[in-house]
């Protein structure tokens, strides 16, 4: 069970609370988590990754276990603490704008 924390606008878009849990096959990866997230909440499709390139959007970051995982390969296994549910996987909207 993977715990996922989304930024405000994506929570509002999907109509969900501050943290959700997802069933993702072992070993969980960024790609598998986002795939499952989009499958369960279709309104989020394309909001985290550009749908044409499947790359992380420039103003999105992935954090977990006090580390920035944004530049890890999408198919790299997530930290064990995320895989076990001890720590959440954070999808972050970059701080910017007015």
């Amino acid at each position, binding site marked *: 069970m993977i715990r996922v924390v989304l930024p405000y606008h994506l929570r509002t878009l999907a109509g969900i609370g501050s943290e959700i849990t997802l069933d993702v096959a072992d070993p969980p990866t960024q790609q598998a988590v986002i795939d499952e997230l989009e499958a369960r909440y279709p309104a989020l499709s394309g909001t985290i990754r550009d749908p044409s390139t499947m790359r992380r959007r420039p103003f999105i970051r992935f954090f977990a276990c006090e580390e920035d995982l944004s530049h890890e390969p999408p198919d790299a296994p997530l930290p064990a603490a995320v895989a076990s549910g001890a720590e959440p996987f954070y999808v972050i909207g*970059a701080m910017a*704008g007015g």
Partner: protein
Amino acid sequence: MSGVRLLVGTAKGAFVLTSDGRRADWEVSGPHFGGWEIYHMAGSPAEPDRIYASQSTGWFGQLIQRSEDGGRSWEAMGNQFAYDGTPGTHQWYDGTPHPWEFARVWHLEPSATDPDTVYAGAEDAALFKTTDGGASWHELAGLRTHRTGPDWQPGAGGMCVHTILIDPDDPDRLHVAISAAGTFRSDDAGQTWEPINRGLRSAGIPDEDAEVGHCVHRITRHPDRPDTLFMQKHWDVMRSDDRGSNWREISGDLPSDFGFPIAVHAHEPDTVYVVPITSDSLHYPPEGKLRVYRSRVGGEEWEPLTRGLPQENCYLNVLRDAMAIDSLDPCGVYFGTTGGEVYGSADAGDSWQPLVRNLPRVLSVEAQTLA
């Protein structure tokens, strides 16, 4: 009883304004999608309670929302806007080749007869179409792949398809306008396109009367006279009486012929509205006076409409998609400002009232006349 619904897209959400046929009192709902840019909303003429909205941010990309109940509730639809084939390049601001990259949908134009068919004008400039109510979108690539496409260059706001006109006599006849490429026409449902910019002169490009490269801000027409088109260009207000094949200037006695929106009266095909802006460098009304100008003779002779509009210290702008007309009698005229006001006139422009103030920067206004 008849009524009017205004669909107001802003930089921080969507708002829906409703009134009865007297158009004296307005109810405001929103923000819908608070914090998101709503470049445009459009209702289906065939099913007015079906409304499409273009929702986007730089963080999370593009979404398309659809309402079946006049804007009370919404459902996210398909948001994959993929260019057909290998996109190639257009010119960047510095003149170098730049790959076509989808940024957002500027304008949605629903079919007059089929609520599931909608055209979407995109940045970087391309035309998309859905025939399943927004579930999926496909590019009409003949526009972007036009032989002149590699020479197109963005305006300061981006290189966007911002205007889409469907001919009321033949839905296969389409006009689009692109900043800063110009105006294009298709007679075969968007498969092939012809640049129609003859008569335009633009001092800001090396060849003032080039085939493409003109910063057309908006085109419009009256449904009873589809051969006549009106254009607000970067500078110059223009008119064509042959479906865009040839244009002539009708700026006449306007205090400035720079501006963004242009609209036509619902019942008088020769009555046209513009909002003059000081210049391309000063995006606010001349003398700090917000004046809509109306020509009742198809251009050249214009009268200022000021009753109810601020006539001092007014330094806002009215963007290209932020003016709309209802079809009651007398027709209503509406526009939204970058200062967050929506003004309305229930007497074809003779007098105005603010319908709502202090909204975010208004990007678009559409008017639906309800039975």
